[in-house]
């Protein structure tokens, strides 16, 4: 049969089946990939913190994603966001997601949310997280997050869980973290510097 590109498609059986398009690796079970509109219960898919130089400082995924896809998405999204100019809007469409980002000093905070999620409240979620970090570290800077990355994770976990905000009260979140720190201090017996460095 000739392959001339003519108008029209075959029938019957000819109308091409709408291909299930790759809805990005984040499409998890329970959120049907073919749902015409993501339901109102839209969630955050992931959060990234990265520097102006494109160094990833923190990544949190709220939907199981293969490592390979994560790396690809991170690379791609960092490129997109870093290429944007300062006065541009904080939202963009990316793959099948909405991306909300904001830059604080040298760090970009970047959230990927689903179609029906609220952009502005996500922007403020980022801000609230920065406030929490700030309060905890006392005027937070990128280095604090590098050296205490586990703390940055713990604080985020207290604040957001499974892609939904857990508690919006700054006091509650900080109280939880401080309690944990108290427990930690009780735990820890002082050690010599040499021992710490593995020389003892």
């Amino acid at each position, binding site marked *: *049969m*000739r*392959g*001339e*590109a*003519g*108008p029209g498609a*075959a*029938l*019957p059986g000819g*109308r*091409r*089946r*709408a291909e299930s*398009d790759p809805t990005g690796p984040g499409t998890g079970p*329970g959120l049907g990939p*073919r749902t015409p*509109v993501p*339901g*109102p*219960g*839209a969630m955050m898919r992931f959060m990234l913190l990265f520097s102006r130089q494109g160094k990833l400082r923190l*990544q949190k995924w709220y939907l199981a994603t293969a*490592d390979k896809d994560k790396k690809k998405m991170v690379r791609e999204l960092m490129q997109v966001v870093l290429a944007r100019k300062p*006065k541009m*809007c904080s*939202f963009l*469409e990316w793959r*099948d997601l909405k991306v909300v980002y904001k830059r604080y000093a040298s760090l970009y905070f970047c959230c990927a949310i689903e179609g029906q999620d*609220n*952009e*502005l*409240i996500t*922007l*403020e979620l980022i801000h609230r997280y920065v406030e929490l970090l700030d309060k905890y570290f*006392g005027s937070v800077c990128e*280095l604090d997050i*590098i*050296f205490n*990355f*586990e*703390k940055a*994770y*713990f604080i985020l*976990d207290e604040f957001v*869980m*499974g892609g939904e905000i857990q*508690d*919006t*009260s700054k006091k*509650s979140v900080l109280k939880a973290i401080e*309690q*944990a*720190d108290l427990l*930690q*201090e009780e*735990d*820890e017996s002082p050690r010599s510097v040499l021992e710490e*460095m*593995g020389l003892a």
Partner: protein
Amino acid sequence: MPAVSKGDGMRGLAVFISDIRNCKSKEAEIKRINKELANIRSKFKGDKALDGYSKKKYVCKLLFIFLLGHDIDFGHMEAVNLLSSNRYTEKQIGYLFISVLVNSNSELIRLINNAIKNDLASRNPTFMGLALHCIANVGSREMAEAFAGEIPKILVAGDTMDSVKQSAALCLLRLYRTSPDLVPMGDWTSRVVHLLNDQHLGVVTAATSLITTLAQKNPEEFKTSVSLAVSRLSRIVTSASTDLQDYTYYFVPAPWLSVKLLRLLQCYPPPEDPAVRGRLTECLETILNKAQEPPKSKKVQHSNAKNAVLFEAISLIIHHDSEPNLLVRACNQLGQFLQHRETNLRYLALESMCTLASSEFSHEAVKTHIETVINALKTERDVSVRQRAVDLLYAMCDRSNAQQIVAEMLNYLETADYSIREEIVLKVAILAEKYAVDYTWYVDTILNLIRIAGDYVSEEVWYRVIQIVINRDDVQGYAAKTVFEALQAPACHENLVKVGGYILGEFGNLIAGDPRSSPLIQFNLLHSKFHLCSVPTRALLLSTYIKFVNLFPEIKTTIQDVLRSDSQLKNADVELQQRAVEYLRLSTIASTDILATVLEEMPPFPERESSILAKLKKKKGPGTVTDLEEIKKERSSDMNGSAEPASVNASAVSTPSPSADLLGLGAAPLTNSAPPPSSSGSLLVDVFSDSASAVAPLAPGSDDNFASPDLASSEVVSEEPADTVHDADELFHKFVCKNNGVLFENQLLQIGLKSEFRQNLGRMFIFYGNKTSTQFLNFTPTVICSDDLQSSLNLQTKPVDPTVDGGAQVQQVVNIECVSDFMEAPILNIQFRYGGTFQNLSVKLPITLNKFFQPTEMSSQDFFQRWKQLSNPKQEVQNIFKAKHPMDAEITKAKIIGFGSALLEEVDPNPANFVGAGIIHTKTTQIGCLLRLEPNLQAQMYRLTLRTSKEAVSQRLCELLSEQF
């Protein structure tokens, strides 16, 4: 090294991190990491048992290395060990490692689950919190299996601490998203709903997220959440900004919770209870009013939080789509934002207005902002904002402003970012088609598109313009003239050559009278582009040339010379070479008549969903393109309608007949099915393969095409969800003499058939095509046989997928066994949800007795001998009727063959008469049938006589055949 602030923990880790940061090159970093990995590995493998602290430190280092982007393939076991530590920080690091690095290693999962189980049972809220976080972070099915039953209990237990409740709610939500089947609904659901009344706003926030997701899937069970959510929302929006203490964010009371409550309400239609509804309207009005109040703070956080609630409220207003007053107010508010100095607000306003544009109440209000939006297209510096502006223009477009919007989009296209050009091209093409009053405007627009952005004009766009030109004869001459003129440009896009080649090939004759576009000039013009084009375009041009041979005999020799040249006949490309050879041959040996038949004008294309729309949908992902109207309807139907059972009428599905497969049709293409004409732009397929197949080409008038233009006539019947059988008799009767074609078509659905019969068995393929851009839900086709029919006809169908995507087609196979002769036809009943409405339609399925005919050849002598044997008056049925169609002998012959009997030539002494013979095969018996058709040209009448051994059969066959002439 900075002062590590709190929990002055792991110096070794800090040193390591410093080392990494001091590495001057990637190589040095990798070297340092490898050294560290070797060190950790030896520690883990060493004889000396590591204390918890060291384990924690090394696990933490591994985690850091992993987060730098390196692979980690050990340490999982040590991390799992940390989980059972009694020290909080060790446990915490263990959980963190698991959360970040766990894979579906089942053995580990079992160990992890054990540790989690212990922590959940510990009654220590901090440990419980860690365990719940881990479940939520990993969220795997194994975890759901282990804990989905337990977590609801924790959630609703009276003595659970608030913080644990919050974690439990979100943890359960996570499991429900992954494995909804594993989360049992039960008594706890009603108690969860009452968490909306909880004192602790953190608990309410977490619970609202959970309820929203559960309510989407189980709207009935969570219906009571509506009034609770409304009253909670009402309390928040009317509270003073200090009332909620720490839940007030920059003077906005509980913005997150407000947004979540508003989203929960979007799972439901407007509240039925007038009191609740009134209260909600008050809330929404308050939120809209607050937008007009002076800000309580200059901080952007204040306005962002306030507007976050406002936008969510507008989403709810649009979702309800029932309060014109609120809709118009929302639109005005968004109109203000369109000119706001904050880019973010302009972006969101454009986005939100897109959905408002689809509401009948606010469509006009949205349209008043057209100038602002066009201006945004021209002046916004951010491509993502311009993209929104394009979307909004597309959404607000209607007949009144289409010309302006299309012109602006074309304008913008000249300078548009490359990333969005293709999409704009598609949108312009769709709007131009949808709102074309004057198709010359449409043609101009598309040609402009090709001129401005030819590289971004996909196949679908130019296919579509050709479909439209072919289907509308009022525009053909104009199209030919316009493409001819456009082709004059020294450099024109290859897509223009394609369109030009196709259109001139079909309609070049319409402008050939003008000496400036004489046949030779047309040909030379096209051929001047030939060598610059790619192979597919050249192939198309070759087809144009052979069409020219037919249209313009005067230039036949010129064209033959071109075809004969070495560059064609010996072209390295097989396709081109073959075309040149075949076309040359065709032009040499075929008579003018044959050539005219072969190269006849393309039949009209069946009207169906625009291929461009399908493309746009594919590009934008499902759902984003469909009319927002439809989406909304669909959303509400999901909610309201999910209780409705998808009824599958099992009674009609008769017992499977093992013999049905004897035909061996399987999924393989049917042998005698003519290739659908519209599938191929190629002439040769249409011409040659048809003649090799059975009936179709013998009956040029039998409209065996899907392209048959009168199909559209049945469109009207479609919309009302009627219970009556669509008595599309005309279409039904068409199938008496043919097996393939379109059985039914309306604006939503097209049903096509392909069938084959052999002896008493048959197989029918039913194709359901969704012509819209929206999914059909609960799509349930059922074949219904009356009681009488059930004993004579065994039908076996397979269920089809209940969801038919927009633009998609599903196929259903019906296996047929004829047990004994029958009169009626089975009914095909189709039920589905489209948008908010329930569709129910029925058509007769053309399975008729004559399908089980086997032709029998016999001599004149035999025929009349048998004819006499069947002379019992009960065996003969005769009908005299007026001709409904032109009395063409060839068509009549084709119909008799199509009917299934043999056409016996030179049997009847009167050569004008037709006689046929055959045997009807049923499972129980075989019935010999003879027929005779005597036309009376003068009177435009026929006399049809049927003689069979069974009266009912004679009767039925006579009825069926009489309708054909």
